[in-house]
């Protein structure tokens, strides 16, 4: 599962209040996604392209459990978030939403705009611009299964279909 794209870099402690401000929670998932990152970077939506990565600092996605924070990034085109570590609810929400998350202690070495190649299943982040490779924490098998399925909903679909077939 190799992905290639551009890094958009942010700092420490980006909270879900900043990724999806509370006033957008009443909107639909697709409508809320038009405001992704608005509380931290009003230029994000004009810059983001399908296939980009977010490289965050420590404790990415802290605060509220609002799943729109994860779904908005995915709908905006982000395919994976790379950070030294994540707030745990955001981490699980992202996986369930089919948005890959890589815990990469040295993510801070990646610069804005760097071209990255990311192997989610192997836990490898190659910075093609700067020419180095970073290692991310390897995800346990059942989480990799969720990631490979594209999130919890398709995973449940398969599980239920298998159950009905027996």
């Amino acid at each position, binding site marked *: 599962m190799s992905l290639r794209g551009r890094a958009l870099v942010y700092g420490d402690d980006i909270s879900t209040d900043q990724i999806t401000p509370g006033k957008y929670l009443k909107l639909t998932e697709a409508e809320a996604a038009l405001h992704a990152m608005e509380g931290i970077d009003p230029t994000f939506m004009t810059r983001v392209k399908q296939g980009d990565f977010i490289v965050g600092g420590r404790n990415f996605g802290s605060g509220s459990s609002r*799943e729109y924070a994860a779904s908005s990034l995915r709908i905006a085109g982000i395919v994976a978030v790379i950070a030294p*570590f994540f707030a745990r609810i955001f981490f699980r929400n992202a996986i369930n939403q089919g948005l890959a998350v890589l815990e990469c202690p040295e993510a801070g070495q990646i610069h804005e705009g760097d071209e990255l190649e990311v192997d989610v299943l192997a836990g490898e982040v190659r910075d093609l611009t700067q020419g180095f490779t970073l290692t991310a924490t390897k995800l*346990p098998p059942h989480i990799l299964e969720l990631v490979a399925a594209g999130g919890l909903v398709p995973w449940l679909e398969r599980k239920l279909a298998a159950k009905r077939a027996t």
Partner: protein
Amino acid sequence: MGQTLSEKVIARTSGRTSVVPGEIVWCAVDLAMVHDSSGPRRLGPLLERLGAEIWDPSKVVIVTDHFTPANDQAEVEIARVTRAFAHDRGILKYHEAEGICHIVPLEQGYVRPGMLFVGADSHSTTAGVMGAFAVPIGATEMLGVFVTGEIWLKVPETTRIEWSGRLRDGCMAKDMVLTVLGEIGDDGATYQALEYGGEGVYALPFDERIVLTNMAIEHGAKAGVIPPDDLTFEMIGGAGRETAVYPDADAHYLRVLKHDASDLVPQIAWPGSPDNVAPATAAAGERIDQGYIGACTGAKYTDLAAVARILKGRRVAPGIRLLIAPASKDVMRRAAESDVLATILAAGATLLPTGCGACAGLGHGVLGPGERCISSTNRNYPGRMGHVEARVFLGSPLTVAASAVTGMVTDPRELL
């Protein structure tokens, strides 16, 4: 080796005799809570797509608290979808506009010691006040629970927070939480369970204990638990002893933080993050536009009584708004039946409906650019309570009330 309270609940619900931190296990959920924002509007269409039923409707609680009373047609529709879902799927534990989703299940006695509780809201750690292992999750995660009744959990390490001594007059549980937040930061317990203990915790009234477990999430924790005592069982009519679990004397803790509650002075968090903590005196004189008493954290009966104590015989400073959004209808009723509400209103405060409100950037009392607020709520990340350039201080209800009287951040001991 001994087990912590959290490990015991995970072991029981995963069918094991013991578990160790780092293990990933599948657990059977005892109670699952969603609210109007995280719940039926998201889960209804997904359940239909899967053609699935809820595994056990008697184990589901639905609380409409974010979008009620409705401000516009979008909110009307969310409340309608939530109501219809509860009706059609036989959810009897359904509560609309009765209070906040972390307070209502406690008032109703739904949360029992030893339970595995999951809630689709980050402050679902609150239920740990009953000695339950209570984990906040997202909406899609809850879909998995609704369909299978199970959830995977990584067994967390536990950090124990010991409070010796008792709080002095002028301090509240909020000052205890802020002290630890200042010490370990808002990521200081990421992936961990917090277990509270010591005289300083057990001397607190139940309303105040709620603040500790409610804000466990503000340390990044997966859960916050208070092992039960007599007061815990009293809250559910003397029941709960048969399911209660306690940490073993030789349980393993990642670390033990020790504090003396009698050493504490009132604390505040500077705007930006709940871990920007300092004594209230360090921010003394910071001008405010609004005081906010609200949310699951800071608008329980004890909180309103603390506010009334400061406001008795005083007035909110000219030009300052003091807004009160009680945590539940029951809290509002109790405040009205005592002299608490009359005292607050006589001082010039504004009473708002019960619900999440401005704490979540919703409803009444959201802030504009450059506006400054001191709030009894749980978070002050940029944009949390409205405009991203608003500045929000966090403090105890006593500190918020004292600040509303003077119009600037004030150590409440000056007004006791």
